[in-house]
Each structure stands twice: as structure tokens, then as C-alpha cells.
């Protein structure tokens, strides 16, 4: 029980550090106005390494943090990240082969899908000025950037998080 609490606190502090990087120190990582979405990369990492449940819960909490600090409508990032955690978790069990190329591809696709969901939802329900052009000029470079940092971030998280990797065939069964 104590181990579980310690693990939870450790993961929470890693999320805190990621949030600080993404909000306070984002200009360090900024390239021509675009910075990587470290929280999204973390959600994908959690879902890939710990499966559906952890992916969903991490996605939900990371999404709620983004909702609270961003201009986006409350609940939107929560729902999008939750679904992202779920689908990446499902993908992990079905086709994931633990190859670096797959990890990069999953992060890129996740960023694009996530950006599209946010843009379409805001456009439809909030009759906003944001359009698909906004997504293309911001979302696509962000996806490439996220893809580029996937391997170093995954490596770093592997080192600092005491989560043990597991084979997809034995997980949950």
C-alpha cells in the first residue's frame, strides 16, 4: 500500500515538473512559436507502458490540468486526453511492437487527432474564429515536434519512473 502511495506521489511530481516545463519554461523549447505538448507525450507514454486504465486516468488528469490553465472550454481537454489514453492503450495491446518508429508514429498521430478534435469541437460548438488553417499552421508542426522529442522523453521517463515494461500478451490476463 505504502509503495503504491509513494509511486502515486512520484508520478504526480513528474506531472508537476512537466506542467512547469509546459507553462513556465515553454519558451526554452519554443521553435518559431511552437512548443511540444509534453503532457500529451506523457499520456501516450503512460498508455503504452501501463495500458488502458492508467492511460485513461493519466489522460483525464492531464486534460483537467490543461483545461484549468488554458483558454479552452473546461472539460474538452479532459475528454480528449481521456479518449487518447484509452485508444493508445487499446493500440498497445493490439498492434504495438515496442519499436521506436511505432512510438514516434503513435505520438504524431495522437497529436494530429487530438488537435483536430479540439479544433472541430470549438469550431462547431463555439462558432469560433479558429479554423482548420489554424490547425494546419500550428497542429502539424506541433505533431512533428512531438514526434522528434518522443524517443528522448520516453528514455528519460523510462529512467525516472519505476514502471516496469511488460509484454502486451500477458497484460491484464
Amino acid at each position, binding site marked *: 500500500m505504502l509503495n503504491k502511495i509513494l509511486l502515486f506521489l512520484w508520478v504526480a511530481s513528474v506531472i508537476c515538473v512537466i506542467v512547469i516545463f509546459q507553462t513556465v519554461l515553454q519558451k526554452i523549447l519554443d521553435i518559431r512559436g511552437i512548443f511540444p505538448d509534453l503532457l500529451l507525450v506523457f499520456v501516450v507514454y503512460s498508455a503504452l507502458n501501463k495500458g488502458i486504465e492508467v492511460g485513461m486516468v493519466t489522460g483525464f488528469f492531464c486534460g483537467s490540468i490543461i483545461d484549468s490553465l488554458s483558454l479552452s472550454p473546461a472539460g474538452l481537454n479532459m475528454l480528449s486526453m481521456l479518449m487518447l489514453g484509452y485508444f493508445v492503450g487499446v493500440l498497445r495491446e493490439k498492434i504495438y511492437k515496442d519499436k521506436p518508429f511505432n512510438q514516434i508514429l503513435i505520438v504524431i498521430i495522437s497529436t494530429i487527432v487530438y488537435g483536430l478534435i479540439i479544433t472541430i469541437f470549438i469550431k462547431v460548438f463555439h462558432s469560433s474564429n*479558429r479554423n482548420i488553417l489554424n*490547425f494546419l499552421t500550428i497542429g502539424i508542426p506541433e505533431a512533428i515536434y512531438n514526434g522528434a522529442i518522443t524517443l528522448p522523453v520516453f528514455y528519460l521517463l523510462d529512467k525516472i519512473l519505476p514502471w516496469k515494461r511488460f509484454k502486451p500478451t500477458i497484460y491484464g490476463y
Partner: protein
Amino acid sequence: MWQHFLWKHRRKIILGVLVVLSVSILFLHPFFNTSSNTIFLSFTSPFYKLSSKIKFKISNSINSILMLKNLHEENKLLRTQVSLLNKTNIQYEELLNENGRLRNLLNFKPYISKKQIGAFVIGYDPANLFKSIIIDRGYKDNISKNMIVVNDKGLIGRVLSVTSNSAKTILITDAESSVSAIVQRSRCIGSLVGAGKNMCEIKYLAQNDDVQIGDTIVSSGEGEIFPKGIPIGIVSNVEKKKDGITLKVDVQLFADFSKLEEVFVKIE
């Protein structure tokens, strides 16, 4: 029996509960947007302040070490600039006084308030699609919603939500932001909206409006939020739209939104 059922369907249960929770928050978003934002912001702003202070200290130390080499030459240059600026400042104050007297004679209201409060940027929007900042001043410093935020170069945005010691500001580069802007030379008025990536676009300018590359754009004072005459940027591109009615006018902003560190909030 129940335990077996819960364990067997745990994924569906977790997914269902979390989806219901987020969808309900999404539908009740006007309430949650204000309350969750302010609660979370007031809880997290001390951490932001602390981390931004550490960041400033580290970057200042690195900058000082790097700049030590050119310090002597820079000092000389700055002294010359200070003396020049002092002269310009005296002239400016004279003009300001004269302008005030003439405005009084004509019974005009002053459009630029002198009351402003300095603030540090302690956080940025965590999502690329949205453009906002968090500043270290709140309602304890008399900051309230819709107060405008500027820096030494020009307009930055307006305050969107306030906690006791921090405030969230929507930047003019955000697609949701809209400012009534005027071309200083030709007095044509349009609506300035954010185009992301430190750029803005002026909408609703007709094709026969007189707009040229290099024209200065300032706030027009129409509407209730932004006062008249705040510098915004310079026209960087003018194109006729395919609709045959309006122009596409791109504006390069005076303020460098990629390096926002200190801003001023206009109290009045």
C-alpha cells in the same frame, strides 16, 4: 460476485465514469470555466511565481556571464542613449502638457490613462492552439476582468479571469481575440483578430480602403474595452481576397510575443 463483476468490467466502468464526468463539465462549461480556472489558478500561481523567479535568476546569471565581454562598449552606448532619451522625454512631456491643455480647451477625454501597474509573466498557455499568459497580479492589486495589458512596444491583450494574486490574460494573437483597429494614416477601421504565431490579421476592410504595407495600426477606441491610440503593429502584407469585397491585411505586431516577460496592466 460484485467484486468479480467490477474487476471484469473495470475498463468500461472507469471509461464510463470519466466520460460522464468530462461531458457534464463540458456542458456546464460557463460555470466550470470561471470557477475551476480561478480555483486552480489561485492554487498553482505560487508554484508558477517560484518557478518563474528561479527561471529569471538562472537566465539572468547566464546572460550576465555571456554579456560581460561587451559590457564596457554597451555601457558607453547606453549612456549616449540615455542622454538622447532624456532630451526626447523633456520634449515629449512638453507636448503631452500642450496636448492636455488643448484637449481641455476642446473638452476631449484623455484616451490614454497614466495609471498602470507592472506585472511579471509567470506562465504561458499549455496548449499551442490557444494564446494566453498568466501574470503575477490579481484583485489584491486592483486588477479586474477586461483591463487591458500592454508592454513598452504596444498592445498585448486583456485580462480574462482574476484570482487574488494572479490573472489570466488573453493575447491579441489568439484567434478568439478581437480588437477594433485603425490604420493611422488613412483612418480606415477594421477588426484585428489573432492569426497565431505572433501575427494578426485585420478583417472587414473593403478593397477600396487605403491600406499600404508599412502603415501603422493602432487601437481605434471603438467598443468598451480597448482605449484609442494604443500602438499595435505594422502592415506587413495586403492582398485582395477572392470574394472581391474585402482585403486580407496581415499585421506584424510591435510587441515580441515570443519574449514576453514584463507587462503593464492599465488600471483605468
